[in-house]
């Protein structure tokens, strides 16, 4: 029953999208009617897809194994939360989630973006609908989550055990909201380009979407990195894995886009570049999906891969990219007025920002695709090591870090103001002072490279704070009320910049000063690591819902006092017989003590123990970055009112 209903719902959604396209694009119908019906059927698409998604979730919850997808990825014994979230723990379900978010976006465009001229709106709906249409075909023909099988098996195969983790609950939806949110920017941008007479307001219309997608993508990437950190048991937070890179690329272009939009809004310059960035960002979302789903790149995210699916996505991808680039080239505008070229103003720094970010995108993309390229040409099979990425990204990060805090201090029009110079000088002095203080306190000798990066992280942090100080202390009160009214969004930006500094600090500090020991321990053995001692106390068992844990007990000792119990575990899943390693992490201020266990025998164990100072700054920074932009988004709409939103 579920299979049949599900298929019917998807087909209805497909029909609705065809009808929407018909009303949006057929010229004979009069304007008002066009808009009314296109909106109506757009809403229908959303509803049909929503119902089919709910239906699939229901199938998972009641364990309807007549559905192949449910059978392959679920089992009766699985905890309820993983039945609900397990929907996106597999290829078919996750594509349906992708589609659902596409249609939610369409629904929001129809429902909430009402101030935008109807002609632009209609084109946007049409483009968004055609993306939905393409993915509906993809799902129906290559990845149908409602595929039926008979006879009905008694129990399912079960969820991949590594996915049975709280990370699964939030990481994929956030990442997808980020990826797919950019589809709206894509649709708007193409629609704007199709419109010949332009109002300058379009940057305001699409800004909101640029922020929301960016927030979701940032959170998604952070949570993914955190998940990999504790679950994969390697204690690394970024591996330059192709799939990670695939999510980083739209993040970088999305960041460039936010800045470029600011520039356009304030100066009216670089319209085409801004539009191109929105197209590029969604293109990278699609490329990411293609790379993951086709399985052409070896990665830790290996859903069952099927070349046919890859081909489909490649077709969808090429179509939308070429279509949008064609429209882009046809509508290229010369920057209408060449203004005076003033180097030291904010716009120039945004250009440099965009330039550096795009260079990062190119080098990452190149490193990611090089193995494919080489195999196609010479047949050699290679891996591009993480070192490559570190080497090429480091100088770019250094440049970005030097310049990033300076730009916001400048005005949009003129050269340096005295205030900016004064503030930068103050910040510079504070930074130098802090670095010297840090060198005195910390006994490790930093090498020049790490020291430089750490200093730059502090530099970003300090300038961002100094920049928030009131401009004139005697007028503090007036400034303060002005600040509240007008400058709240600016606070958001500064928080985000500051958070980037925090993140860089964490990344560099944790990579440079972590201590790691892989060793064999007998019962009662004590080891020394950083300022701590760790003692192995034996093992016990713990019964979980569908697994049994073999817990290894450690005592964490500091200054001869026990401060914590740590229990890393080997987790045995009853049904599949899979074993996973569960790391134990003890938080100590901003640091982590991190233990995983390998071989466990009667007499001894193999343990991997790491102490990672300031590692929590990485995620703290990431979340704060998202928070800053959220802050900006919320107050922006409050101040400008919904009319410009």
């Amino acid at each position, binding site marked *: 029953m579920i299979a049949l209903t599900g298929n019917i719902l998807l087909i209805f959604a497909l029909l609705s999208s065809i009808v929407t396209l018909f009303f949006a694009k057929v010229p004979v119908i009069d304007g008002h009617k066009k808009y009314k019906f296109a909106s109506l059927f757009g809403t229908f698409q959303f509803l049909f897809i929503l119902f089919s998604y709910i239906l699939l979730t229901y199938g998972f919850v009641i364990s309807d194994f007549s559905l192949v997808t449910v059978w392959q990825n679920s089992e009766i014994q699985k905890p309820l939360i993983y039945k609900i979230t397990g929907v996106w723990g597999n290829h078919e379900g996750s594509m349906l989630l992708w589609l659902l978010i596409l249609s939610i976006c369409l629904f929001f465009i129809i429902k909430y973006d009402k101030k935008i001229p109807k002609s632009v709106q209609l084109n946007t709906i049409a483009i968004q609908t055609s993306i939905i249409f393409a993915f509906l075909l993809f799902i129906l023909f290559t990845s149908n989550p409602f595929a039926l099988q008979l006879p009905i098996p008694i129990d399912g195969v079960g969820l*991949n055990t*590594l996915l049975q983790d709280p990370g699964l609950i939030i990481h994929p939806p956030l990442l997808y909201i980020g990826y797919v949110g950019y589809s709206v920017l894509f649709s708007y941008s193409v629609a704007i380009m199709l419109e010949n007479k332009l109002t300058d307001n379009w940057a305001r219309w699409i800004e909101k979407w640029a922020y929301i997608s960016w927030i979701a993508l940032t959170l998604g990437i952070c949570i993914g990195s955190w998940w990999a950190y504790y679950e994969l*048991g390697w204690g690394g937070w970024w591996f330059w894995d192709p799939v990670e890179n695939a999510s980083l690329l739209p993040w970088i272009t999305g960041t460039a886009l936010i800045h470029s939009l600011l520039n356009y809004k304030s100066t009216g310059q670089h319209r085409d570049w801004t539009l191109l960035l929105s197209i590029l960002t969604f293109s990278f979302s699609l490329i990411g999906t293609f790379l993951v789903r086709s*399985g052409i790149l*070896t990665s*830790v*995210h*290996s859903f069952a891969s099927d070349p046919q699916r890859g081909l489909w996505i490649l077709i969808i991808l090429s179509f939308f990219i070429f279509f949008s680039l064609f429209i882009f080239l046809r509508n290229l505008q010369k920057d209408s007025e*060449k203004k*005076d*070229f003033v*180097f030291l103003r904010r716009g*120039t720094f945004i250009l440099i920002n965009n*330039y550096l970010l795009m*260079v990062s995108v*190119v*080098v990452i993309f*190149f*490193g990611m695709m*090089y193995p494919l390229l*080489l195999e196609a040409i010479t047949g*050699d*099979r*290679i*891996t*591009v*090591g993480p*070192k*490559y990425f570190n*080497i*090429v990204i480091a*100088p*770019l990060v250094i440049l970005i870090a030097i310049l990033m805090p300076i730009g916001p201090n400048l005005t949009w029009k003129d050269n340096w103001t005295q205030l900016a110079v004064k503030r930068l000088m103050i910040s510079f002095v504070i930074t130098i002072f802090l670095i010297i203080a840090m060198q005195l306190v910390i006994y490790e000798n930093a090498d020049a490279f790490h020291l430089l990066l750490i200093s730059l992280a502090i530099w970003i942090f300090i300038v961002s704070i100094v920049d928030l100080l009131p401009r004139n202390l005697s007028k503090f009160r007036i400034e303060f009320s002005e600040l509240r009214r007008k400058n709240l969004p600016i606070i958001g930006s500064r928080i985000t910049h500051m958070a980037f500094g925090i993140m860089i600090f964490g990344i560099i500090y944790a990579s440079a000063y972590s201590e790691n020991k*892989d*060793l*064999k321990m007998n019962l009662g053995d004590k080891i020394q690591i950083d300022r701590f001692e760790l003692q192995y106390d034996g093992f016990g068992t713990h019964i979980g819902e569908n697994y049994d844990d073999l817990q290894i007990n450690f005592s964490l000792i500091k200054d001869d006092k026990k401060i914590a119990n740590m229990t890393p575990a080997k987790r045995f899943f009853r049904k*599949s017989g*899979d*074993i*996973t*390693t569960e790391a134990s992490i003890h938080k100590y201020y901003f640091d982590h003590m991190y233990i*995983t*266990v*390998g*071989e466990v025998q009667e007499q001894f164990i*193999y*343990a*991997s123990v790491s102490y990672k100072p300031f590692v929590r700054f990485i995620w703290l920074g990431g979340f704060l970055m998202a928070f800053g932009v959220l802050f900006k988004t919320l107050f922006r709409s409050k101040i400008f009112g919904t009319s410009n939103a």
Partner: protein
Amino acid sequence: MTNKVKRLYFYTTATLLSALAIALVLIALDENIIYFYSPSEINQSEDGTLLRVGGLVKDGSLKIGSDLGTKFIIEDNTAEVSVIYNGILPDLFREGQGIVAEGKFIDNLFIANEIVAKHDENYMPKEVYESLKNK
């Protein structure tokens, strides 16, 4: 300076920086690509180059030594490579399972510094699958 000259400076700098970036990329790439071989393709006397070997862990070959040292054999249908690894083996490391080891040859022994066994139980590393298929 006129606007034109200023602009010229700006774009020249950008171009030079791009060239620098490209040079850096090529150097970094040259030093950090790691070739993959199956046991039968490999030249075991090639000492000291970082590379990856992928195949199946031979049944009965795994020996756990004292102090984390493990020794095992990676094979395809025609050739074998003896591997020594000091460290904790991944959960999915089992005899008969496809794995990829990264390391260097020293005196005809492959000293691995990393063992890659992927997430999924059914998942065979792609390179291993393809090199076995061709046999």
